[in-house]
């Protein structure tokens, strides 16, 4: 009896896999996301890391430098390089040839000597994001020269310069590069968690709501086969797709982290081969839960469209722990390993920081996954035993 049951399971799983591999949409949903997303995230963070690296020497083109020797020498002392200005500052800035140009007024020397505001114009193109840091640094340097001069003048007149600063604003940036890198890891894990769901999503939908919509479910249910075997066969096919998705996502994730200059963000990430496998091991228990739950949700929907709506909502559930942890990190607690989704987020963090996993962690992750999967499959079998399963919306 059991051998017949298993034979049906294998036949159904094989057919759904052949069908799935011929389905471009199923393949795209299983493969495209895990292949592309970690690479995108890595690119994003490479850019951030490079911003944090030692900035290049700032070149400041100054027109009329001869009128303001004090300013020029201040800029050069501060590490900037004063260069010859372009012939037409406005065009040069608008074309993006130079990030900015300082133009010293011809009456600068006279006004400076008389203690009146001496004018320096700065040409910028505010639509160019890439120049923002250069503009910010140049602005800061000119303002620093201005404050320094003001200070000297006050001291010469015997005024306490502290009178100029009734309030001192001290900006302190809590989001250091370390926090940003931790965010990167959490985002990557979140994407792998999504890959577990996306991998089996389309197949789960097509083999249940899709089967009903194309009206092939009725003849199938008229066959002399146990419906539990039918359900488990469909589950195994969805499981295969989900597993493929997660293996791909983990691989691209490890490669992406390898390519990201994490050391520039001041983070130590353990990326040994055992760690990569541990990461995969942490993610895999989520796959059967994702496959079984998505089959259950899709089977409950009355149409393919409705199944799509429900499943895209289901997708947010496992992502929630990751999103919350990106905004507000929590300290890992033992029980968290037993909540699929949260478990992946917490345990991958442990693996990536180089802390080992305990037997309790692994037991909770695998045990809760197995329990939830079996529960979903029992519910799915019960759903398939009902006459209502044939009813189309």
């Amino acid at each position, binding site marked *: 009896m059991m051998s*017949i049951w298993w*034979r*049906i399971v294998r*036949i*159904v799983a094989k*057919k759904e896999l*052949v*069908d799935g591999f*011929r*389905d471009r949409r199923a393949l795209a949903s299983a493969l495209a996301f895990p292949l592309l997303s970690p690479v995108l995230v890595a690119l994003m963070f490479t850019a951030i890391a490079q911003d944090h690296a030692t900035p290049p020497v700032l070149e400041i083109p100054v027109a009329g430098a001869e009128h303001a020797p004090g300013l020029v020498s201040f800029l050069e002392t501060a590490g900037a390089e004063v260069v010859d200005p372009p012939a037409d500052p406005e065009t040069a800035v608008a074309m993006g040839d130079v990030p900015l140009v300082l133009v010293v007024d011809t009456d600068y020397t006279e006004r400076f000597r008389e203690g009146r505001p001496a004018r320096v114009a700065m040409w910028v193109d505010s639509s160019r994001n890439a120049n923002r840091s250069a503009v910010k640094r140049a602005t800061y340097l000119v303002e620093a020269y201005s404050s320094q001069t003001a200070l000297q003048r006050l001291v010469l007149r015997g005024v306490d310069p502290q009178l100029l600063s009734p309030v001192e604003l001290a900006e302190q940036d809590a989001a250091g590069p370390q926090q940003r890198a931790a965010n990167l890891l959490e985002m990557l894990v979140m994407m792998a968690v999504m890959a577990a769901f996306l991998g089996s999503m389309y197949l789960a939908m097509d083999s249940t709501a899709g*089967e009903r919509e*194309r*009206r*092939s*479910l*009725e*003849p199938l*249910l*008229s*066959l*002399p*086969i*146990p419906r539990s075997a039918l359900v488990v066969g469909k589950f195994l096919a969805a499981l295969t797709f989900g597993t493929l998705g997660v293996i791909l996502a983990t691989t691209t994730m490890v490669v992406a982290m390898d390519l990201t200059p994490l050391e520039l963000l001041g983070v130590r990430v353990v990326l040994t081969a055992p760690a990569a496998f541990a990461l995969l091991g942490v993610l895999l228990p989520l796959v059967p839960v994702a496959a079984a739950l998505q089959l259950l949700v899709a089977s409950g929907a009355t149409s393919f469209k409705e199944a799509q709506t429900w499943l895209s909502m289901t997708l947010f559930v496992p992502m929630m722990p990751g999103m919350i942890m990106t905004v507000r990190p929590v300290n890992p607690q033992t029980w968290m390993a037993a909540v699929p989704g949260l478990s992946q987020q917490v345990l991958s963090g442990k693996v990536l920081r180089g802390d080992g996993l305990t037997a309790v962690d692994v037991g909770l992750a695998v045990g809760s996954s197995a329990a939830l999967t079996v529960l979903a499959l029992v519910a799915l079998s019960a759903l398939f035993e009902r*006459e209502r399963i*044939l009813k189309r919306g």
Partner: protein
Amino acid sequence: MIHARTLRKSFGDVVAVHDVSFEAPDGQITGLLGPNGAGKSTTMRMLHGLLVPDTGSVTIDGIDVATDTLAARRTVGVLPDALGLYPRLTAVENVEYYAALHGMPDAEAKARIAALVERLDMGSIAHRRTAGFSQGERMKVALARALVHAPQNILLDEPTNGLDVMSTRAVRAMVRSLRDEGRCVVFSSHIMQEVAALCDHIVVVARGQVVARGTADELVARTGASNLEDAFVALVEPDA
């Protein structure tokens, strides 16, 4: 042989089938004739246990469908009114899937499918994916799928719906040859001429009840009508 006794089925407040009893013997084509919504499809679904009747019972070759559903179904080939195929599988792959689910060994399935492809004249479409098949081509694949395990009992729910003349003829020829092999065929239709041309024995169903049974000639004689169409109308709409 299929034996249905006092079948009744309701969905919520709607009673789809009130009281249907009939016998479909081997070597005969039994026609279930009735207008749309008479309860034919619901009855057909109860015959092989896809729907469980509220009251009454069905036996197939002496096996009770309610208590031993899977054993009863092994002797039945079903062509539901839905001809859903798998569009990414070829015609033959669609049929092979069902052969495998029936537990047929590969070699036996291959030989049987080759014979059906020949018999249903499916040679040109056998190895094409079924996406975009015409209604007639879909019907042939669905028929092959229903017959792949050489069932003794065959349930055909409106099999000629939407078919052109050539396809209709092919289906009729197939149904007759199944009868001549000694199989039990139950054929439902709302088209009287079709049932009259094909069936040995007609069960007229209206408003979920059997209103008459007999051969086409007997039905005409019983109602005193001059032709079969008038007889049918007299039977399903007695007050008209």
